[in-house]
């Protein structure tokens, strides 16, 4: 029988990972979504397709390339050498980078839709009221897109919590460092430890349901407030 205390490290690691990844996704994804919503560049749809790739790509393929990029001979290895380690693969930082790529489309798409939904007019109005483009972004565009940003954040968080294939490829299975929930469940099932697998799986099920429900309710109330 596995002591309950053993269940905690993967849960904590998963939540930490998802929180860091979500924060990074909002910081990186919002400008990308803004650019995709507003730009008239011919490269726009190319970039959009690259961002959306993880939706259709098998996680193992993404994981494979990330492993090469993060490994000792890739740019990740060079970055890692800055603080004296060999590689970013099989580290928490590596997991964060991988997850950011993997969950990006789930954050960018709803935010982009929200930016596109209100059209050009509010931005023009803000400009006629002396707001610079930067001021307009923060005082008009972002508040109007808030329901989309919330949706993106929740989806990004939930998607990161649930990932498996990419983590397995680039993170391995190091307890406390890269052994996240989904890997832990896989491990318990592999070794026929049904009780902890049941506990974690049921927990994930309830968590996922709550997330989706909360998101729907939140979006509904934000939309009502925003009309």
């Amino acid at each position, binding site marked *: 029988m596995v002591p309950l205390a053993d269940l905690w490290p993967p849960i904590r690691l998963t939540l930490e990972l998802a929180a860091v990844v979500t924060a990074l996704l909002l910081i990186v994804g919002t400008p990308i979504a803004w650019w995709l919503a507003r730009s008239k560049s011919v490269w726009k749809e190319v970039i959009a397709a690259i961002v959306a790739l993880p939706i259709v790509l098998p996680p193992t393929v993404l994981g494979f390339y990330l492993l090469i990029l993060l490994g000792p001979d890739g740019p990740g290895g060079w970055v890692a050498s800055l603080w004296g380690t060999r590689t970013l693969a099989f580290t928490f930082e590596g997991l964060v980078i991988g997850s950011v790529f993997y969950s990006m489309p789930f954050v960018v798409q709803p935010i982009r839709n929200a930016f596109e939904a209100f059209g050009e*007019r509010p931005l023009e109005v803000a400009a006629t009221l002396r*707001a610079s483009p930067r001021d307009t972004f923060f005082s008009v565009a972002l508040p109007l897109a808030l329901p989309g940003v919330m949706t993106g954040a929740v989806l990004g968080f939930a998607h990161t919590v649930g990932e498996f294939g990419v983590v397995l490829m680039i993170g391995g299975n190091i307890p406390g460092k890269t052994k996240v929930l989904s890997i832990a469940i896989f491990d318990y099932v592999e070794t026929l430890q049904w009780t902890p697998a049941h506990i974690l799986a049921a927990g994930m099920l309830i968590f996922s349901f709550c997330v989706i429900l909360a998101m729907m309710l939140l979006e509904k109330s934000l939309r009502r407030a925003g009309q």
Partner: protein
Amino acid sequence: MTTGKTIRARFHGRLGAFALDAAFETPARGFTALFGPSGCGKTTLLRCAAGLERFADGYFALGNDVWQDAAQFRPTYRRPVGVVFQEASLFAHLSVRRNLLYGHRRAVAQGANGEIRFDDVIELLGITHLLERSTRDLSGGERQRVAIGRALLSQPKLLLMDEPLSALDRLTKDDILPYLEKLHASLAIPVLYVTHDLGEVERLADHIVLIERGRVIASGLLTEVQGNPALPLARIPEAAVSLDARIEAHDTAYGLTKVAVRGASLVLPEVAGKIGEFRRIRVGASDVSLARNAPAESSILNCLPARVLGHLVDERNQVNVSIGLGRDGAGDRLLSRITRKSWDTLQLHVGSEVYAQIKGVALV
């Protein structure tokens, strides 16, 4: 504000399939209507003035302040301009008060002196009771009034209005027009007002720029453009001249009011207002007939000496005659629509002394 300041605009270029080649000058005071049929480019012209559209070949100046020319282009947020769009376009995430203060705060932070005051604006527009509401609880007319207030509070030196009434129903329009008239009377800043509604032009405009297919075909004082037989406004069936008339006296026994325009006095059905106040009146071309001699007895109250200034025969054998009020013809201009037969019978020509008999004068 200095009189004699002018707005000078010239925009040339293409926007998709649409070609714009328009230039006009208008005094930087009062309402200037940009008038023309839908799709003629008047809205594009207004957007160019705001800096929302950009043509490589463009020039815009308000007095000595050049907003764009060949060498520079000031982006919209650096132009002291207020814009009222067709739809109110209020910010959905802000209350009415914060909508109103959005531009005000920024303009003052950027050094505007804030002489257009919050309290004055909300009182003028009758929106004091709406301040704490959410924008979604407002009626169409209230929304548009808030939008006008928001534009005014951004301390513009030029107000641009793009068909601000066209998205509203008839009743709401009638509800807002008095506010625009109040604005007209109390506002020191010039207004460029885009519309395709002649009624709004007759009621509000001092100057007019006529636009057709991306080109300016005439511009000038409203009455002069209306009363010029060579221009399209004089040829439409409902051709009329708008005049600003000063209330002279009330005849309460007969329910009449005597008003003065340049070169003549007119009598019209009783008008509310104090002696000395100005009212906009409208004299339709088909309501003005001409006589060589003063009729001895007539039921028509307004029979005014005038002089023929010009005429144009149209394809329906009608003659549109421009007349100047007063024996010397130097007063306000009217337009008279008579038959070609009358024109010939009376042997009229430019300079003829006539009597203009006006069947109906209406307030607008």
